[in-house]
C-alpha cells in the first residue's frame, strides 16, 4: 500500500520541508485572523486537518474521472461540499465540540491550502498517500499556528492558553507575565502576525543554512585533508 520511505517523505514534507505557513506561505488569511492566541490557532488547525484529509481522499479517489480542463471547478465543488457536510455533521452530532470549533469551519473556506494540496498532490496520487499528505500538511500548519499564536499572546497580553477554558472547562489560562504587564497591542493586531511570521521564516532558514553548512564541513575534510 504505502512504503515506509514514501510515508516518511510525506511526513517530512508536511511538517517541515514544505510547511504550508513557513514555505508555501499559504492560508495567510485564517492565519492572521485566528492566531491571536494559541488555542484558536490549534483549533483552526484541527478543523483544517480533518477537511484536508477528507478532501484529499475524495479527490484522489475520483482523480481518474476528472477531466484535466475542468479540474479546478470540480475541486472547488468537492471541497465546498465537504466543508459544508463536515459543518452540518459536527453541528448535529458533536454539538458541544461544534460550539468550540464551529466558528473555524467556515473559515477553512478562506484557506487556499486545501485547494493547493488537492491540486498539487491529491490529483496525482493514490487515496492513501493523499490522505496522509492532507493530515501532515495540517500538522505542519498546526505547530506553526500554535507557536505563532503562543508568541502573539505572550508578547501581546502576557498570557498563554487563553481561551482554553472554553475547550476544557476545568483548565485555566496561564498568566505568564505579571498581571500589570501593559501588553503590546501590535502583536495582537494583524501586522504583529506578519512580523512574527517573518521571524519564524527567518529562524527556519537559519536552521536550514546551519544544517547545510554542517553537512558541507563533514564532507570537506576528506577532500581537503592536510591543508590546515
Amino acid at each position: 500500500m504505502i512504503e515506509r520511505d514514501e510515508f516518511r517523505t510525506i511526513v517530512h514534507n508536511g511538517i517541515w520541508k514544505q510547511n504550508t505557513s513557513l514555505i508555501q506561505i499559504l492560508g495567510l488569511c485564517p492565519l492572521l485572523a485566528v492566531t491571536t492566541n494559541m488555542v484558536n490557532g490549534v483549533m483552526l488547525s484541527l478543523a483544517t486537518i480533518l477537511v484536508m484529509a477528507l478532501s484529499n481522499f475524495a479527490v484522489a479517489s475520483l482523480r481518474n474521472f476528472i477531466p484535466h480542463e475542468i479540474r479546478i471547478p470540480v475541486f472547488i465543488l468537492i471541497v465546498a461540499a465537504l466543508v459544508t457536510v463536515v459543518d452540518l455533521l459536527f453541528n448535529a452530532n458533536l454539538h458541544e465540540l461544534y460550539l468550540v470549533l464551529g466558528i473555524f469551519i467556515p473559515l477553512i473556506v478562506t484557506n487556499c491550502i486545501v485547494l493547493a494540496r488537492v491540486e498539487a498532490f491529491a490529483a496525482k496520487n493514490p487515496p492513501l498517500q493523499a490522505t496522509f499528505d492532507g493530515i501532515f500538511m495540517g500538522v505542519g500548519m498546526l505547530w506553526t499556528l500554535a507557536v505563532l499564536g503562543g508568541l502573539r499572546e505572550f508578547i501581546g497580553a502576557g498570557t498563554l492558553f487563553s481561551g482554553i477554558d472554553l475547550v476544557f472547562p476545568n483548565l485555566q489560562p496561564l498568566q505568564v507575565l505579571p498581571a500589570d504587564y501593559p501588553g503590546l497591542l501590535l502583536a495582537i493586531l494583524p501586522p504583529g502576525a506578519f512580523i512574527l511570521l517573518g521571524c519564524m521564516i527567518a529562524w527556519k532558514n537559519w536552521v536550514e543554512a546551519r544544517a547545510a553548512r554542517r553537512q558541507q564541513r563533514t564532507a570537506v575534510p576528506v577532500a581537503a585533508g592536510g591543508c590546515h
Partner: protein
Amino acid sequence: MKKKEPTAVTMAARTAAILFVFVIIFTGVLSGAYLWTKPALEASAAEEKMKLIDEVLPRSAYDNELLKDTVTLPASPLLGTDEPTTAYRARKGTQPVALVLEAVAPDGYSGKIRLILAVNLDGSIAGVRVTQHRETPGLGDYIEPKKDRNKERPWITQFNGHAYAATTDKEWKVKKDGGQFDFMAGATVTPRAVIKAVRKATKYVAENHEALHASK
C-alpha cells in the same frame, strides 16, 4: 476505420456533461446531509433558545410550551428593531404570566447590543440578558454576566423587579447622570445604551399590553 479526433464542440459538450454529473452528485450529497441533520439542528437551536430564555425567566414561572406560543412584533423604534421579531408568551394554565422579547440598543460603544428580556404581566422586569455585542473586551463587556467580575450580583441583574410605570425617565439612568443604576468607571456609553434600550422596551410592552397578551 480511424477514430475521429473529437471536435471542439463535442469536447466542450463532454466536459460540460461530466461537470454536470459532478454537480448533481455533490448537490445530492449536500442535500442528503442537510436533510439528515435538520431535525438535530432544529432541536439544538430550540434548546439553545430555551437556555437563553431560562436565564431571564425561570421555568417554574410558566407551564405552557413557550416556543410554540409566539406573537410577531413588527419593527419598532421602541424596540430598536428594523425587522419583525418574535416574542414568546409565558402562561400558567390560561393565565398570562410574562412576555419574552428581543430588543436592540443601537447606540453601544461599537455597534448594536442585542438583548433579550422578560417582562412580567404587571410590567416589572423578570430578567435581561445580552445576546450579542461588540463592546470593548475587559471594559464594556461587563454587561455579559460571564465577563462581569461581580459574580454575586452581575450588573445586568439590577433591572430585575423594576417596572416601567413605577419609575420615571429621570430615574432610569446611570448614577452618574442622576439615575439609579450602577455603572463601571471608564465605560459609561455601554450601560447607558443598555439602560435606554431596556427602558424603551418596557415602555413598548406597557403601551401594547392588551394586544401582546391577548389569547390566540
